[in-house]
C-alpha cells in the first residue's frame, strides 16, 4: 500500500500520449467548440477557482490548442479542472471551455491512459468520502 505523500497521491506513471495530425482536428469530433474564436481576453482565467493551483492558465490551454502545441496534454491544468462551468458561463465568445477541457482529457483517456491511482487512500477515507466523489472521479479520470 502506498503511503500518503505530502500534497496528495503520487502521479501516475510516465504517460506516452500520441496524437497524429492537428490537435484541433482531434478536438473537433469531441467537442464542436469554436476554439479559434478565442480572442484571449482572460475572463476564463480570472474566474477559475483553481487558477492558483494550475501550471497552465486556462487561456494558455486554449492557446496551446490554437498553436497546435501538444504539450498541453501533459499539463496538470486539464486534470485540476473540476468542471464547475464558471468559465463557460462567462466567456464572451460563448465558448464552452469546460467541454474543451473534457475533450483534452478524453484524448488522453481514450488512449487507455488513466489519470487516477487510488492506492494512496486509507480505508477510513474510502468509507467516509461520499460515493458521488468516487463515481465522478472514475468518470472523469479513467478511460
Amino acid at each position, binding site marked *: 500500500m502506498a503511503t500518503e505523500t505530502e500534497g496528495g497521491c503520487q502521479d501516475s506513471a510516465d504517460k506516452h500520449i500520441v496524437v497524429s495530425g492537428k490537435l484541433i482536428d482531434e478536438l473537433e469530433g469531441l467537442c*464542436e467548440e469554436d476554439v479559434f474564436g478565442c480572442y484571449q481576453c482572460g475572463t476564463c482565467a480570472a474566474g477559475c477557482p*483553481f487558477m492558483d*493551483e494550475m501550471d497552465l492558465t486556462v487561456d494558455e490551454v486554449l492557446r496551446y490548442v490554437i498553436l497546435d502545441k501538444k504539450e498541453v496534454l501533459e499539463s496538470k491544468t486539464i486534470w485540476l479542472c*473540476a468542471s464547475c462551468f464558471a468559465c*463557460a*458561463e462567462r466567456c464572451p465568445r460563448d465558448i464552452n471551455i469546460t467541454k474543451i477541457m*473534457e475533450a483534452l482529457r478524453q484524448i488522453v483517456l481514450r488512449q487507455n491512459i488513466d489519470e487516477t491511482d487510488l492506492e494512496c487512500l486509507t480505508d477510513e477515507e474510502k468509507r467516509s468520502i461520499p460515493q458521488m466523489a468516487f*463515481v465522478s472521479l472514475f468518470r472523469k479520470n479513467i478511460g
Partner: protein
Amino acid sequence: MELLYYPGCTLKTSAVNLEESAFAVAEALGHSMIEMEEWNCCGVSASLTEDDLMHHLAPLRNLVHAEDQGMDRIVTLCDMCSNTLKQTDYRVREREDDLKTLNDFMDQENDYRMTVSVQHFLEFLRDDVGWKTLKKKVVNPLKGVRIMPYYGCMLLRPREVAIDDAEEPRIMADLIKALGAEVVDNPYKIECCGSYKTIEEKEMTSRRAKTISTYAVERDADLIMLSCPLCKYNIDQRGKEAELLFDGYSQIPVMYYTQLLAIALGLEGDWGFGAHAVDPTPLLEEKGVLPISEGST
C-alpha cells in the same frame, strides 16, 4: 402530495442525515417522499463530449422508470444527481435523434416519452410550498443565527439546468429569511468547492474550503448552509483538515438546509450531527435554537 423521490448513492450512505431530515421536513409540510421502485446510479458526472451517448443511458433509465411508475416528476436531494438528470433530460429534448438512438439501445426498457421533470427539493420548497407557507409553519425561528448560503456549482450551472439566476441566486437567502435567520451574503456562494478533487487533491480542497469559510468568518457568520453532500464533505471535513495547514484557522460549522429546516419547524430527531467534522450542536445551543442537552458544555 406524494413525491417520487430519487435518492442517488450518497444519500443512502454518507448523507443519510440529509435524507432523514428532508423526509421529516416533507412530512411536517404535509407531503410524503416515496422512493422510486427501481433506480440506478444517476450517471454523474454529466457527459461533456459530443460523441458520447453511452453515459446518458444511466440517467435516462431513471427518467424512464419514473414514467413507468406513472409519475411526471422526480424530486432529488443531491445537487449532482439533480444536475446530471436534468442535463440528460435537456439533451434528449434538444436532440430527438439522440433520444431515438438511446431508446432503441435500451431495448429492455420502455421508451422515454419526455414527460418527466426533475426537481431539486429546494425548488419544491420554493415553487410548491412557498416561502409564506413555510414561514407560517416555523415554530422555532432561528433568531440571531447568521447563516452564509452556499450554492456551489451544480444548482446553477450550466444555465440550461439552473434552478435560479446563475449570477444572483436568491433561493437560499429567501429560505434563510423564512426560517427567521439572518443572511450573510457573499461573493463565494456560487464558486466551486473542489468537487471530486477531494480524493486526489486533498490539500487543494482544504485550501478552497478555507477560502470560502474565511469570508463567512470575517463577516461574523455562525454557520454555512448548503445542499450538496459533496460540498458539505469538502467544506466540513477538508475544512477541518485545513486547521492543520493554517495556523490559527478554525472551521465554522456546515449544515444542510434540511437540518436547519427541521430545527426551525420544531421537529424532534437526531439530525446526524455526529457525522459532521465540526459539530454544530454547541453553536445551535448557544444561539438558543436547540435546547441545551445534558452533558454538553
